[in-house]
């Protein structure tokens, strides 16, 4: 990165607090593909001058995969630790690029004592755009066919369908909707801790089914808003040997590209 990423601890040492905490998440921190999404988002925030911090080493898994696998103990251990850290820094507003982190902190932390305003990165960027802080000059994607895959934990789980689409429309691209979109969206196959295990026996893998649907529109880009969907669809595109023709990109990556960041 050509600028420094500041941590909450550093802000606290200076006696300041940032506008927003960027919750990076495990995928965003460790997964090579997802790290690119993390960086793209940071570049955008940096460019518009949003004062943000990360937790860095003080961040832990939100507990989402453990919870959905059925391990409430591990989930709550993570949750209560995270809540303690967040409350110690008096964090008010959190933004994250992972719908699973977003969902867990937003919906499952409050009854454990963690009350924060949590938003998904697409929602945050939409806010910034409405405030006039983020301006997207279209052009880079003009006329390119993009289809958006709704992440279950952003869409169906939390009812957010509009923010990602609004950002994509700003790119001046040709947005095509799959038949199974929005409330009827089809899972990428990674949710509910499936990301971490082999799928059960069946006719095909869920990500293959989903990618097949996306590819039927012959898009240039399959846009996602979740690091897990990104992995699953990237694998799907590889399955069909289309990785030279079709890209799987997170929305923030597209925005960063449009801004030439």
């Amino acid at each position, binding site marked *: 990165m050509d600028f420094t990423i500041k941590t909450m601890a550093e802000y606290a040492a200076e006696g300041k607090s940032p506008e927003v905490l960027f919750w990076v998440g495990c995928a965003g921190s*460790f997964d090579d593909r997802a790290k690119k999404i993390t960086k793209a988002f940071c570049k955008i925030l940096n460019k518009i001058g949003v004062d943000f911090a990360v937790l860095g080493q003080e961040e832990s898994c939100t507990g989402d995969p453990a919870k959905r*696998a059925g*391990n409430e103990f*591990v989930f709550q251990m993570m949750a209560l630790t995270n809540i303690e850290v967040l409350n110690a820094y008096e964090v008010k507003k959190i933004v994250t690029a992972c719908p699973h982190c977003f969902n867990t902190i937003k919906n499952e932390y409050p009854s454990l004592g963690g009350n924060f305003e949590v938003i998904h990165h697409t929602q945050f960027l939409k806010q910034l755009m409405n405030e006039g802080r983020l301006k997207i000059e279209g052009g880079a994607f003009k006329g390119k066919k993009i289809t958006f895959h709704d992440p279950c934990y952003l869409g169906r*789980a939390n009812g957010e369908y509009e923010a990602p689409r609004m950002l994509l429309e700003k790119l001046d691209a040709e947005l095509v909707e799959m038949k199974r979109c929005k409330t*009827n969206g089809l899972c990428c196959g990674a949710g509910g801790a499936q990301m971490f*295990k082999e*799928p*059960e026996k*069946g006719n095909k893998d869920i990500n293959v089914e989903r990618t097949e649907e996306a590819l039927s529109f012959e898009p240039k880009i399959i846009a996602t808003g979740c690091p897990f969907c990104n992995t699953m669809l990237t694998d799907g595109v590889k399955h069909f040997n289309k990785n030279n023709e079709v890209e799987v990109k997170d929305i923030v990556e597209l925005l960063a590209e449009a801004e030439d960041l």
Partner: protein
Amino acid sequence: MQYLDNIIFLILLVAGFGLFGKSLSKIYRNIRLGREINRSDRKPERWETMTRVALGQSRMVKRPIAGILHLFVYVGFVIINIELIEIVVDGIFGTHRFLATIFGHTFYNIFTVTLEVLAILVVIGVVLFFIRRNFYGVKRLTMKELFGWPKNDANWILIIEFALMVAFFSMNAADHQLQGAYAAHPIPGSFPISGILLGWFSGFSEPTLHLIERTAWWFHFIGILFFMNYLYYSKHLHIILAFPSTWYANLDLYGKFNNLDSVTKEIKLMMDPNADPYAAPAEGDIAEAPSKFGAEDVFDLNQVQLLNAYSCTECGRCTSVCPANITGKILSPRLILMKTRDRLEEVGRNIDKNGKFEDDGKKLLNDYITKEELWACTTCNACTEACPVLLDPLSIIFDMRRFLVMEQSAAPQELNLMMTNVENNAAPWQYNQADRLNWAKD
């Protein structure tokens, strides 16, 4: 002996409703075998949801063809039940078309025309449903999991409804001819549909017409009583239980899974540096029965989940959108509810026989629902989104996973690895927490 009819009628009526009441009380008892759950909050929202979803059928029309046909049958059913009031009063007091005297000529004509139109819509609905289900090949209605009773049950319902409507039209047509040709009084009611459909009744003699009218009338009445009592054995229970199921539905966002309070208590104790691990439990805690984590059998599920199982009408909208099912895994959300209901029914029969539940060596887990099904779920909530009456098969899957993991440590090996990583490294992969910010240095 002139009151014989009325007496037989009354006996049948009391027996029919009595039997039905008994069935309902059994269902109520079985549902109460589940854990209690507090769903009495947000009452205005609950009434609104029930009105919109159960009464207003708002989610049925998501699939327009099935939605509209269902609306025919549903509205027809509701309105035609007003006819039942007339039948009951006529039956008990020996009157004929009692409502005509109350409604007056014009309004009774409007009433009977409405019934006739709705009845013909019901006929159209059930005939098309029958064709769709048996010959048209809608995938969710022809899946293997419906073979046997579920398929026959669905067809019986359609056949019974068809027969009831035929009786209704025969009764009206015969009555119409009878009144028109032989009675001194003006004809009460107007019967455009039965007039067309059964115009051939015109050549019959008075006794024949009378016989047809009475036979159809009794058939209609006994048919309704029979149908009512058939509900207990049938997926058709949804016509009643859709209402409480939507009222008690989960109103939270789909993504919000419940947190177990018992676990919170333990973790807080674990994390509290001042807690004394050897301290005697506080007074109140001793009485508390040691609770099981998650669900192994129907007793561990909550009462709304059991109510859901009885409310499922096996339409399969959930299964048809389930990503696991679509890609050939054995998970079917519909089957999760059906199996829960089957097990609950079995437990109910056990209680009927023994006075209380005697261990039968079976459990919902493994004997009915397999681990393979449970682990195939992506928790994507497509099933809950698709259900026309807000049932929640996912919550059952989730509670059973909790049992597998927390009581039996029976998760797939890869998930055990993931959970160990989360516990030890604070990430599902085996990376060091200290490296969490390494991306910023690249």
